[in-house]
């Protein structure tokens, strides 16, 4: 490593990895812009940023899953280029993905050594059980090598996956949101394991949304935003506020709302009390007529789960729902629709639309009962009704018979909106309404939402994009780990407050495996 002495960093010799000028585009989306990252031997290096900041993409490039368009990776002083995940693994760079990649029906040992059984055709579980036992012992893991993954808790399964990554003699270990599904005690166990690995000289890249965990664990932290490298801080000199500022510090291109547009005496159209399910903890809120109520939080905070409880898509353990002051018993989505609650899924292609059907068929899907007599659909009336909405909310389609698949994302979303308007839904739940929609169409959706509330409808808007929430909402509810952590009037809301409550971890203490 002595040859490379271009700069005179004192700990040059400790540097195991450098990523320089990494650039990556996906079909026109500039995912990474000239990104830089540096890792030293035996450090825990946190990588933070909002959803979509490019953390995962950068790590996928490091581990050979994606190829960079530009830039170079220097590993142990040598320029490297990994074409597959396997190549990176063999070189000593392993990643544990957020979603587990284990075979549930196989044992822990079989999972760890799958594809690396003894030479020849026969397998001998005694050998791999023994090797796994040694591996687990060295990591102080209390798991039997012969336990099937399906009998382990998610936390233990995660440990198995980490042990598998370590078993490749990893020098660099990437952990992508490893604590997302863990209980407090499991998280502690994970931290102990990370400390031991660090002591052994393994470098760990730790992606997490939970800043207080980073504060405890990380030696250094690198912040990314909008696909760009923002900066690297030494953790013991940094404050959480500083990190949050770096995370959200972009210029906000949307004009934020400064005050609520809802009349203070507007009637309450929807109220929930103590909604609870395995993923939602005692969520209560009010929605007034003509209001846009924003739900902020990180992915997995339980916002969609709240919506699914309201519309009866999931079963609630506890909690009451009131529509216009009257308690209602919503047991399935059909009940919700009959009470005038329409849900626009975040994944409209899977849950919102029948892609192969026409605009009319999709728009009328929820209302066919009202447009049919003795089982026969009155197609002409359907076309007329749909046409009315094509005009009024400006769906750009050559005809009402056009197949939905051929419309743009924004116009598809409008058809879903039309569907609920035709069904006379007064309460609309928009789940990530602008995902996958280009900027021009976005502002049209915003305009439409404003029109809807001006005409007396009420909207719940779930979004992971803070600028969007700040621009549209009259009130914002912040969630973290299934619980409501803060309710803010728009006049008091800004990115920093929201991020603070969205990463608040102390409510997670109630969680049990």
């Amino acid at each position, binding site marked *: 490593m002595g040859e490379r002495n271009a700069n005179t960093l004192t700990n040059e010799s400790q540097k195991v990895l450098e990523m320089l000028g990494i650039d990556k585009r996906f079909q026109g989306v500039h995912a990474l812009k000239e990104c830089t990252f540096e890792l030293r031997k035996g450090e825990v290096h946190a990588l933070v940023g909002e959803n979509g900041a490019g953390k995962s993409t950068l790590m996928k490039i490091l581990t050979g899953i994606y190829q960079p368009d530009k830039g170079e990776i220097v590993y142990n002083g040598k320029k490297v280029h990994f074409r597959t995940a396997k190549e990176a693994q063999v070189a000593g760079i392993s990643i544990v993905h957020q979603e587990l990649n284990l075979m549930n029906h196989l044992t822990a040992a079989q999972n760890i050594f799958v594809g690396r059984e003894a030479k020849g055709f026969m397998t001998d579980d005694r050998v791999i059980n023994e090797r796994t036992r040694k591996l687990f012992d060295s990591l102080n893991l209390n798991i039997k090598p012969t336990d099937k993954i399906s*009998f382990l808790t998610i936390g233990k399964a995660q440990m198995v996956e980490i042990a598998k990554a370590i078993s490749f003699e990893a020098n660099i270990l990437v952990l992508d949101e490893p604590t997302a599904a863990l209980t407090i005690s499991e998280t502690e166990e994970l931290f102990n394991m990370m400390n031991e690995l660090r002591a052994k000289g393994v470098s760990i890249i730790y992606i997490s949304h939970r800043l207080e965990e980073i504060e405890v664990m990380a030696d250094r932290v690198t912040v990314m935003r909008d696909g760009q490298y923002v900066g690297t801080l030494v953790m013991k000199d940094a404050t959480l506020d500083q990190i949050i500022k770096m995370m959200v510090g972009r210029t906000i291109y949307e004009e934020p709302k400064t005050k609520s547009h809802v009349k203070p005496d507007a009637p309450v159209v929807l109220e929930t009390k103590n909604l609870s399910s395995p993923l939602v903890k005692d969520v209560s809120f009010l929605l007034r007529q003509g209001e846009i109520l924003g739900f902020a939080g990180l992915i997995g905070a339980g916002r969609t789960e709240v919506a699914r409880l309201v519309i009866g898509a999931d079963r609630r353990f506890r909690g009451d729902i009131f529509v216009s002051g009257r308690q209602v018993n919503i047991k399935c989505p059909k009940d919700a629709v009959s009470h005038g609650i329409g849900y626009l899924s975040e994944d409209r292609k899977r849950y919102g639309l029948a892609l192969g059907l026409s605009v009319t068929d999709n728009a009328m899907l929820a209302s066919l009962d009202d447009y049919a007599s003795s089982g026969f659909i009155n197609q002409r009336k359907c076309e007329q009704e749909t046409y009315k909405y094509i005009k009024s909310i400006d769906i750009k389609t050559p005809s009402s018979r056009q197949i939905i698949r051929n419309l743009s994302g924004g116009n598809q979303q409008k058809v879903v909106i039309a569907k609920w308007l035709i069904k006379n839904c007064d309460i609309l739940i928009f789940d990530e309404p602008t995902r996958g929609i280009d900027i021009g169409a976005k502002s049209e959706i915003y305009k439409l939402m404003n029109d809807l509330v001006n005409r007396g409808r009420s909207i719940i808007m779930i979004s992971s994009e803070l600028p969007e929430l700040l621009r549209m909402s009259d009130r914002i509810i912040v969630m973290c780990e299934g619980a409501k952590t803060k309710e803010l009037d728009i006049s008091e809301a800004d990115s920093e407050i929201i991020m603070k409550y969205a990463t608040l971890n102390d409510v997670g203490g109630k969680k049990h495996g």
Partner: protein
Amino acid sequence: MVNGEKSGVLEAIRRSGLQKLLALGALLIMCTFFSIFGQNFFSHSAFMNILDASYYIGFMAIGQTFVIITGGIDLSVGTVMMSGALIGGVAYNVWHWPIAFCLVVIVIVATIFGLINGLLIAKLHLPPFIVTLGTQFISLGFGSIVAEVQTQQYPTVNQADGWFKTAFYRTQGGFPMGAVFLLLFFIAAYILLTRTKLGRYTYAIGSNEEAARISGINIDKWKVIVYVLSGFSAGLAGILYAATYTTIVPQTGNGLELYAIAAVVIGGTSLAGGVGSLVGSLIGVFIMTVLKDGLMSMNMQSQWQIFFTGVVVILAVLLDIYRSKKAAQVKN
């Protein structure tokens, strides 16, 4: 967590593999039932009848178990078996090959169909259901084309090449050689499934194909091997079928695959993949053949046998769903 004690017991049952005993228990209950209520069910001839019917289904079910554990399905085994047996018959009757070669022909034809299935599924990524439905018709037609729609007759015991019947079916003294071969093949397959890479990857692919791929396993190769094995098993089934029934009628065999699949499912192998055992499949085979002979001993004819086979399949799957639901509760 609500019923911690109970779930502990269930977990213990699942861990120790007692679920297989459930199928075995059902089999024993059926035997007892028919012994009491049937006429002459508990006799040597009834026992032999049960064995006879289990040979070819047993071989097919063993191959099918591998396929279903990977999360696939092989709908072609019944017609592939018959196609092999027909073409082997043509080799014997028309081409006048020695009987030993003809038996090899049966296995080769069936294995080639398995290879075709495997290549189409693994390399072209076609759904197994569609591919094997296609090869079901192809093998059904192909056998008849080669045989020119003529029924093929294998030698009977007293004919020149009759030794093959005594070797594969019953000895002169009536000893069931078919059962010996089924047992031998079962043991070989059992070792293959539990002690070799083929077996390990069969489970791995069915459990989480993507995870297996990421772990560096050549998924395509092992999938092809699994379907080849299924074809090979169907070929052995063809030999046993020819030895048992002697007469092979063209354009038959469709529907027999369903008995093999039913046996596998009754034995606790999940159609979703990742779970399954050969012991279970073998018990499944005998549950069906016992049911058949038992109902016969109660004077209920084939329409009733078919009817009750369906009932048993649905009960078995219901039980499986109930079991996995309980297991999911254990996990939570």
